[in-house]
């Protein structure tokens, strides 16, 4: 398969760019942040996106989705990265739709997928517990109690956790922290007794939560995938999330780069346009290369997810690592090349730097991904 977008995917990009430019430009996100209503606005925007078919982009047609595939989902994530549009796209349309669509029971699919596709239900994935992403170290316990389970422990860094109607929770049902096996995934109502959701303000102004579980009761029907064997499901959906975040990072990095190049073409100092200075030209050209490499790695990961979901892990890891590094560099250079104006809250580049910081951390920073790449290669 050629490493290019198809005509349909290009058309999706054009229409996404058109919609986001109108309905959710950066100025829109800035206003939501200033008015402290990113959450409410995200929910409104999400309904509009759902009406365009974005919420159901990975949902089967029988459940009201368009089944357009991961490359299409990545195109949307990238465009949202460009405009910093805050929406539960990755947590719900990408992660939850994938988790339920691929690993859910017939009943779970019939119940949840139509609501996801319609934009009426928002889901969040609760996986991390410590400061760094370590999915193998999950310690939240799911103990067998009667016919079901009782869940205790705490999760943090749950993206879209304050908005969520449903939570996908990774808990340890067997073994000890550090074991590869013994993980079970639960699909729980966010309002279930014993669940406490504490909103957390992150540097990117998106919503996130710490979530505590105190004797939360779950039934066998709440289990997503197999009991004690949820690790594979979790890896699968995390890979999809990494590819989606990599696409978003690629878009955010590209946009902050474009803005910076425009600035280099207009800002005058020493009686010249600063973009004519070779010191800046070479740094910009180098960054361009890194962003092009990112673009290739991201498209490859998305194509791999569509081609063979179970085998796409290494490509997703690669994309997340490269995108995290390149976007971080793009943010650094954007501020430095803008000089003082880049340090002001008034200028947009700071908003990009903040989002990039969070997105590169979520579901594993570049060091985490690189470690996995090396392990997979036998070193």
């Amino acid at each position, binding site marked *: 398969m050629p490493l*290019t977008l198809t005509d349909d995917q290009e058309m999706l990009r054009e229409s996404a760019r058109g919609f986001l430019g109108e309905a959710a430009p950066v100025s829109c996100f800035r206003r939501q942040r200033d008015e402290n209503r990113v959450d409410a606005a995200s929910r409104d925007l999400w309904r509009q996106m759902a009406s365009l078919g974005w919420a159901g982009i990975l949902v089967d047609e029988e459940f009201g989705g368009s089944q357009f595939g991961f490359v299409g989902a990545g195109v949307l994530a990238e465009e949202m990265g460009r405009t910093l549009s805050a929406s539960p796209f990755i947590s719900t349309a990408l992660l939850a739709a994938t988790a339920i669509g691929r690993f859910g029971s017939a009943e779970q699919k019939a119940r949840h997928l139509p609501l996801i596709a319609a934009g009426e239900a928002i889901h969040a994935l609760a996986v991390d517990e410590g400061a760094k992403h370590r999915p193998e170290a999950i310690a939240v316990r799911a103990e067998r109690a009667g016919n079901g389970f009782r869940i205790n422990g705490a999760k943090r860094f749950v993206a879209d956790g304050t908005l969520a109607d449903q939570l996908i929770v990774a808990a340890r049902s067997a073994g000890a922290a550090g074991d590869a096996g013994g993980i079970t995934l639960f699909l729980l109502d966010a309002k279930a007794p014993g669940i406490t959701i504490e909103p957390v303000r992150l540097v990117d102004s998106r919503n996130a939560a710490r979530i505590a579980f105190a004797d939360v009761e779950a039934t066998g029907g709440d289990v997503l995938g197999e009991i004690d064997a949820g690790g594979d499901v979790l890896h699968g959906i995390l890979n999809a999330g990494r590819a989606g975040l990599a696409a978003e990072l690629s878009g955010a990095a590209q946009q902050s780069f474009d803005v910076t*190049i425009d600035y280099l*073409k207009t800002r005058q100092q020493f009686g010249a*346009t600063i973009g*004519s200075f070779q010191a800046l030209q070479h740094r*910009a050209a180098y960054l361009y*290369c890194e962003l092009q*490499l990112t*673009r290739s*790695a991201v498209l490859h990961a998305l194509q791999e997810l569509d081609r063979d979901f179970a085998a796409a892990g290494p490509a997703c890891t690669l994309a997340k690592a490269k995108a995290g590094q390149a976007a971080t560099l793009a943010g650094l250079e954007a501020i430095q090349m803008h000089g003082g104006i880049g340090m002001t809250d008034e200028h947009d580049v700071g908003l990009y730097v903040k989002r990039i910081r969070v997105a590169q951390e979520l579901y594993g920073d570049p060091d985490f991904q690189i470690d996995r790449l090396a392990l997979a290669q036998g070193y």
Partner: protein
Amino acid sequence: MTDLDAFRTQTRAWLSENCPAEMRDGPDGEDKICWGGQRWTFKSDAQRIWLERMAAKGWTVPTWPEEYGGAGLGPEEAKILAQELALIDARIPLGSFGIWMLGPALLRYGTHEQKLHFLPPIARGEIRWCQGYSEPNAGSDLVSLQCRCEDKGDHWLVNGQKVWTSYADEADWIFTLVRTDPASKHQGISFLLIDMAQEGVSTRPIKLISGKSPFCETFFDDVVVPKEYGAGISSIVGTVDRGWDVAKYLLTHEREMISDGGGGAFGGPGLAEFAIGRIGVSGGRLSDPMVRAKIAQLELDTRAFGLTVDRLRDESARGRDMGANSSMLKYYGTELNKRRFELLMDIGGADAVEWDSDLEDAAGLAATWLRSKGNSIEGGTSEIQLNVIAKRVLGLPSA
């Protein structure tokens, strides 16, 4: 089965039958390449047979039209052929600046007669070409070249010097940039084809830090060059005084070629393998965490770069010309290769700095490491490539 699937099946079968076992030990180091030409001595029967069979099939230049020695393959078929060759670790049948550089320029700017005359012997490996671009005072500032070419009515008279001419001492012909109009700069350069056997052409190898001499100085002293090598076969490609256009077009191919080690300059052992054998693995991780992190970072960048080469080629197959992005490939590919050899030297330690090492994985490593320093100079330095990206891709203004 689609046509492409059928092509893959046929190709696989043909290669399995026709690629000699000795030729299945790629990737290619500079020493393994068959360069062809009138002075070439085949290193083995297998090397000769492999070239002859591939040339007969048109697969030394698979995308060239059949009448010029190619197989007329489309981009998708050519990609399949390359994949199938890689699958069996086949050596390239023929290394050739005629294929990588002159060929594309002739296909774009040559007349039908020129193509018919020059291309088939390139495809068959019968004529070996070298490139006369740089001069002692025209390196990065190539357009200031001075090698003089005077119009003497029925012939051209060439006087001057070229430098960094790869394998000039082994080549049969040279494609070179000469000044036909001293009064103007860009528009006074012509692209001239000269027989190296012509009287007044001489070469002198340059010894490099690697101890080897892949480059020469080339001198032209009152060299008489015919205006035509036969009816309609001009010795000049393109228009007189407009050779800069040809030169630039050729450079984009040269840059793309250098970016993936097409010149055979890359080679060397695989990083992880080289390190595992020396350092060892515990708990699935290489025992030296500093080296491990460096290798993994380089592998990450290398993989993402490889995907970028694929993507740009796929895009150009769809009609979006790669254009100045060839400078990105040249820049990034050669810098990666330099990083790789520095890291190999780090890992190899004392083994790597022995000139005469007889270790299988370290023999010749020091020389190749030193040779790799030239990757980011030849074909336009890294700094020139960054200039090109800044101006032609990003549209940043000139100083």
